[in-house]
């Protein structure tokens, strides 16, 4: 199969041109553990790689510009419910719930054993990207030699490792492959979390196209074929909002007043006392 060709195309996409805006540089690991392949252990740190950089807006009160907050309100009496009185309910039938408290649910969560367990080596391109969930940069954790060895070996063989990892409290299938001279861990979706389009009846009734139509379609595809360059794509909405923010910054800005909460009041009293003491010195 044209496997080599595919690889070549993909390498070409990775131009060294810095995309604009610049991609963030991860600052600290979100997980540390080790990559285990049989009896071999490579200590690694996991850095975030994927950033969702959508703008987040806050809801404010139009009349005075103050931030709004949400309250949990009981649907029966309309009263605000404090967190201590909140439990989780699983809806088994309409308006019928099975109640769980936090302890019950926590007890069932798997604990991370701080390992990426590698089961086998596979062809990276044999996995459909549909299953890719999120990617992380693996960094050596005082294990430069072993890390480097694995990286080069994977590059030379063109293989990826397949295994599993527990992040927070969820276990994921995962693969590790070489990308831009680093090992990248990608968590995968479970097969049963991805819908199979063949289950949709409508798709089963598609007709065979007429030859002339098909020829035309193929011609269009050939004419418009090109290489894919991800840096050509930008979030126009984001750029426009950024521009608007800059404009607004020059003009009027709403200053948020901080209400002094009950707990902050005690801090204020302590601050006052300490400031007095420090002044005396």
């Amino acid at each position: 199969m044209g496997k080599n060709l595919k690889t070549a195309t993909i390498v070409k996409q990775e131009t060294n041109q810095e995309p604009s805006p610049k991609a963030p540089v991860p600052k600290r690991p979100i997980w540390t553990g080790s990559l285990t392949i049989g009896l071999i252990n490579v200590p690694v740190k996991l850095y975030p790689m994927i950033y969702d950089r959508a703008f987040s807006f806050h809801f404010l009160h139009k009349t005075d510009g103050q931030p709004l907050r949400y309250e949990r309100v009981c649907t029966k009496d309309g009263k605000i419910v404090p967190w201590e009185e909140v439990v989780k309910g699983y809806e088994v039938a309409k308006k019928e719930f099975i109640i769980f408290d936090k302890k019950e649910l926590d007890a069932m969560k798997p604990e991370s054993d701080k390992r990426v367990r590698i089961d086998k080596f596979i062809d990276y391109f044999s996995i459909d990207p549909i299953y890719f969930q999120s990617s992380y940069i693996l960094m050596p954790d005082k294990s430069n030699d072993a890390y480097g060895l694995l990286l080069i070996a994977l590059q030379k063989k063109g293989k990826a490792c397949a295994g599993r990892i527990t992040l927070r409290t969820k276990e994921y299938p995962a693969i590790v492959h070489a990308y831009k001279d680093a090992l990248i861990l990608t968590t995968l979706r479970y097969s049963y979390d991805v819908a199979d389009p063949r289950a949709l009846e409508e798709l089963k009734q598609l007709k065979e196209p007429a030859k002339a139509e098909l020829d035309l379609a193929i011609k269009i595809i050939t004419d418009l074929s090109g290489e894919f360059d991800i840096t050509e794509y930008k979030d126009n909405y984001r750029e426009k909002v950024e521009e608007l923010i800059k404009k607004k910054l020059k003009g009027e800005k709403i200053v948020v007043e901080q209400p002094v909460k009950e707990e902050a009041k005690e801090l204020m009293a302590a601050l006052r006392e300490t400031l007095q003491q420090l002044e005396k010195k």
Partner: protein
Amino acid sequence: MSERLTKVDFSNLGKILFPKRGITKAQVIEYYIKLAPRMLEIMSDRPIVLTRYPDGVEQKGFYEKDAPQGLPSWVQTVKIYSETAKRDVNYVIVNDLDTLVWLANLAAIEIHMPLSCVEAREKPDLVLFDIDPEPPATFEEGITVALLLKEKLDQLGLKSYVKTSGKKGLHIVVPIQRNYPYYTTREFAHLIGKHLAKETELVVSEFADTKKPNKVFVDYTQNSHGRTMVVPYGLRATPEATVSTPLEWMEVKKGLKSEELNLFSVVKRKKDPWKGIFENRQKLEVK
């Protein structure tokens, strides 16, 4: 806010940082505010390092040398080339209440300082003896060794100060004139340790012996450039919210419990046993 007592904008005050004792971030900040006058006297002008526990001490903290992101303009920092990181690191200097409060608001529960100041980084003004009992030896054996060490220092005419480490050990420091490089203070601390080890079975003075069970290591190795100790009155990331607590020597005796010196009890202590420590900078002369 009508009056502005601090430049710090508090956030997530209700967040639980010590789950076992139910201690919130507000309580941690309050603790540091109250102890600030005693802490600032000692930690000022020193490039500090932090371990932050934004999700509480039961979750993994992260060690931070570099000034954290979102550094307000009023926080003082100093750029120092780090040999381990092979680059300039921007260290925070805590010379005022606001900076300490800001750190507390960042859940910087553990604050560590070097034994020298920014203006004389290679000339320490403290010699540190880190008394570290190896189980089954406990804090109690640590006390025995601390008292022996004090006696030794007394014999040399050196006034020493003691604090708990907040964990299983004790820290004994001798304030000195800024005339000696680290290798001298390190050698000095090592020498004292060797004497103690010779006289007392319980003590080991060599790094290679630190893991010998039921021994107490008098650690001299902290007297080095780039090494740090937890600041006096600094909280430790332990379930009990223990504090590295400065003590009067008369308090250091059998029955003293390290874990009873915590956020709740230390804030009530009126004593300041390390007060004026730097008015008593001594010469290091071994006769």
